[in-house]
């Protein structure tokens, strides 16, 4: 285990969280404080670039690299809460470190804004920080009220795992890291059909029907497994399963009422953090009504 005094990160917030998923940020900051992680605010950051990749790959690289340069200037590794940001920044960081031609090209763009990619930073998702840097022992140390009878399912999201050749984290067909982290809270994390299936968030601007179908299928599998809640680690997945759940229920005529919690909320509840400190009222599917499940 790394010395907790050394656990400092440049906190990359991304766009989706300030746009609509403040509950994730609130709860992540709360557990970071409990675990003694120091999150340094990131000045003048911009979109990670991912949503622009379909339009212009070079602009995606440039935006991503600019964020990486900001981290290099601060001499800190980046921590993100979003799978999309983590995936993009990790992928670009790795590509620019390894591919000299791409690095020269992108540094040509960065020259226009007085920056240069040097390849001296690292990027981690919160889950990687918890699993690799913090470690299970320290997480167990903050769990004061482990869940006794809670059964949950996890949705990992795609961009932290795939393309696996580039991400090099966990097993993309049968990921276990999040399940182990959930286990530390005392909750039972159940297996269910098609666990790694995408939430479909990225196509919602083009076709709003397909993500709703994917949400329904996921929630059916989660319910069939006997889980009482779904745990996510990505703001876009969370929006798709929580924010869009009532819309899906109206549109497809099937009621689920499945609470969707961010992993930091689950951990914070097990750490006996007061329920009113976790922005649970921000969720579309009422969690507070079912809070007895989590006590």
């Amino acid at each position, binding site marked *: 285990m790394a010395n907790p005094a050394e656990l400092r990160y440049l906190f990359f917030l991304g766009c989706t969280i300030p746009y609509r998923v403040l509950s994730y940020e609130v709860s992540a900051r709360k557990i970071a404080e409990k675990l003694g992680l120091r999150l340094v*605010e990131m000045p003048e950051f911009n979109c990670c670039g991912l949503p622009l990749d379909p339009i*212009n790959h070079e602009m995606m*690289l440039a935006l991503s690299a600019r964020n990486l340069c900001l981290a290099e200037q601060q001499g800190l590794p980046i921590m993100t809460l979003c799978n999309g940001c983590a995936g993009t920044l990790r992928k670009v960081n790795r590509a620019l470190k390894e591919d000299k031609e791409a690095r020269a090209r992108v540094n040509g763009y960065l020259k226009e*804004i007085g920056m240069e990619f040097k390849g001296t930073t690292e990027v981690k998702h919160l889950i990687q920080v918890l699993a690799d840097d913090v470690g299970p022992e320290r997480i167990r140390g903050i769990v004061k009220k482990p869940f006794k009878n809670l059964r949950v399912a996890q949705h990992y999201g795609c961009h932290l795992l*795939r393309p696996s050749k580039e991400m090099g984290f966990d097993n993309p067909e049968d990921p276990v890291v999040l399940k182990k982290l959930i286990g530390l809270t005392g909750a039972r994390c159940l297996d269910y059909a098609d666990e790694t299936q*995408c939430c479909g968030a990225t196509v919602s601007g083009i076709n709003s029907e397909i993500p709703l179908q994917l949400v329904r299928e996921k929630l059916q599998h989660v319910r069939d497994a006997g889980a009482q809640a779904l745990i996510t680690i990505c703001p876009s997945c969370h929006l798709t399963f929580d924010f869009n759940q009532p819309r899906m229920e109206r549109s497809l005529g099937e009621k689920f009422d499945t609470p969707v919690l961010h992993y930091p909320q689950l951990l914070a509840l097990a750490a006996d953090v007061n329920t009113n400190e976790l922005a649970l009222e921000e969720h579309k599917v009422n969690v507070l009504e079912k809070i007895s499940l989590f006590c």
Partner: protein
Amino acid sequence: MEKRDSSAETVKPVKVNPHFRHEVMDFPGGKTLKTCFQCGTCTSSCPVARFSSSYRPRQILQMAQLGLKERVLSNEALWLCAACFTCTDRCPQGVEVASVLRTLRNMAVAEGFIPEAYRALASTVLETGYAYKITGLRLKKREELGLPSLPKANLLDMAKLAEVTKFLKVAERGGKSS
């Protein structure tokens, strides 16, 4: 006698561009189009294809290999890829399917085919530095929840990067909507 559909008798020539697949393969991320042998693992693994009647990644790659440039680049289904990378991970030939599809979308944009949602996104990033317009209400909510204020993005940097990567053209012109 049954009325015959006269259009069915018209033979429409299919335009084939033999250089197209090389153009794709020369683009960053397009190289592996070459090794696709049309097994269909991508389509059978695709979460979107399960619920769409028009989106078939295998078919799009085949059209690209055959040189059906116009048909590929003007194809609305091209924009249904969710970028989950399941196809890329499972391809037995090592085709980076999602990256080839992204390459095709980049090429479609350069030809003027861009869905409105993406054109609006391009403008938002240049105007705010973020992928969404974050309203005053959300900023106020941050304060109420005790969160630090959101830093302002450097819009001058955004504009310069957009210029040098030729992204600016897309946001300004938008091309014709596909």
